């Protein structure tokens, strides 16, 4: 009887060991949501360089935009136990931050490829067909003085890396909103304000001058005309 009990106990222990081993293999294979890699990606420090480029860009419109980037950083315990999902907000785990960003957007026309093909003359009348306007975010500034943050007792302060990530998301959101700001239309209208005085100085009457663009731009065209450095 004792032998039978011994065998039974040994069988249970072996079964448990196999089970545990299975769990270990499963965890290390990284199939679950806790997938982690020992060899994670490493940020590289870019070379500190300066790049000098010749160009011929006529900036005709400047938009100053303001955005308050907010982030509600709630610590949550998420998981699944016995195939039941749960998502619990932890007490004393709140952090909030508001980062005001001021950005300058400028629309420009590239004159580097301007040639006789952009000019049409009919008698005394001159038509200038301008290249497509393009938009660049020329600068952005974090209003450090008005950055506000609330951090619960159980949490650490926002790190520089976290704040930079939110700022970069805010920058991307500003860029995303450019087609709806009307800057392309303003750029087209303002181009005439720069070029017409130049042409009148050359001897043309204002009535004889037409400043034209290739086409009317829709939202998809505008996205293609955004020139953003990343």
């Amino acid at each position: 009887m004792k032998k039978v009990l011994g065998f039974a106990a040994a069988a249970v222990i072996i079964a448990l060991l196999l089970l545990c081993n299975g769990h270990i293999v499963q965890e290390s294979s990284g199939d679950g949501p806790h997938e982690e890699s020992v060899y994670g990606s490493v940020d590289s420090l870019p070379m500190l360089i300066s790049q000098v480029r010749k160009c011929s860009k006529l900036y005709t419109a400047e938009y100053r935009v303001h955005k308050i980037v907010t982030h509600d950083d709630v610590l949550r315990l998420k998981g699944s136990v016995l195939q039941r999902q749960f998502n619990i907000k932890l007490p004393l785990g709140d952090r909030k931050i508001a980062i005001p960003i001021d950005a300058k957007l400028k629309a420009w026309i590239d004159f580097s490829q301007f040639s006789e093909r952009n000019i049409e003359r009919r008698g005394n009348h001159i038509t200038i067909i301008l290249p497509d306007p393009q938009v660049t975010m020329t600068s952005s500034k974090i209003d450090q003085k008005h950055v506000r943050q609330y951090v619960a007792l159980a949490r650490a302060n926002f790190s520089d890396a976290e704040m930079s990530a939110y700022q970069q998301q805010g920058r991307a959101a500003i860029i995303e909103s450019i087609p709806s700001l009307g800057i392309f239309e303003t750029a087209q209208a303002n181009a005439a304000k720069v070029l017409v005085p130049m042409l009148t100085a050359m001897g043309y009457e204002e009535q004889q001058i037409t400043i034209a663009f290739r086409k009317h731009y829709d939202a998809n065209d505008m996205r293609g005309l955004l020139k953003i450095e990343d």
Partner: protein
Amino acid sequence: MMKNFKFAIIIFCISLLIVAIFWLRSCTKNDYLELGADNTIDPTPTQIQSIKAIGEWEFLSVSLEELADTIRKGFLSDDELSRIYYGTLRLGINMHQVEPGWLEADGDSVSLMLPKIGLLDRDFIDEARTKPFFESGSWKPEDREALYRQAHESMLEHGLTKENLAAAETNAREQITSLMHAMGYRKVNISFK
């Protein structure tokens, strides 16, 4: 008889235990626990503060990356903050600064008196693009503002050089001459104030 009955019960219990273990294992196969927070920002509007008609003609752009850092000496250890700032200095002329009679055309000749080549905009750092490099200790917004000013000064020093201004002027001459040729003028005389 009694022995066999006990033996059967033990075997039954062990089998039941093994089945229960495997059942529990299959039930908890996809179980996980995760402690964390969402890292995406909340959607907020982008507001236009001002719209301005400008006439800035850029002839040279100087893109710069500057590593700015600061160290705070402590009793036990030092704190350090390093960030990489990105900026583009745009050199050219402001067409709103031309004076009356700046362009004079006569037959196939044209003379232009252009404003001095300079920095078109002193706001040239894209601070929202800044890359954090290293942080130890706790830093205030004023410290980051000081780093920004440090990077600003450094970029001006490295980008707004005599060589770059001369290169911008040379390119301005080439580009405007080409534009005037396209307009039908053969002789182009350009001077800067």
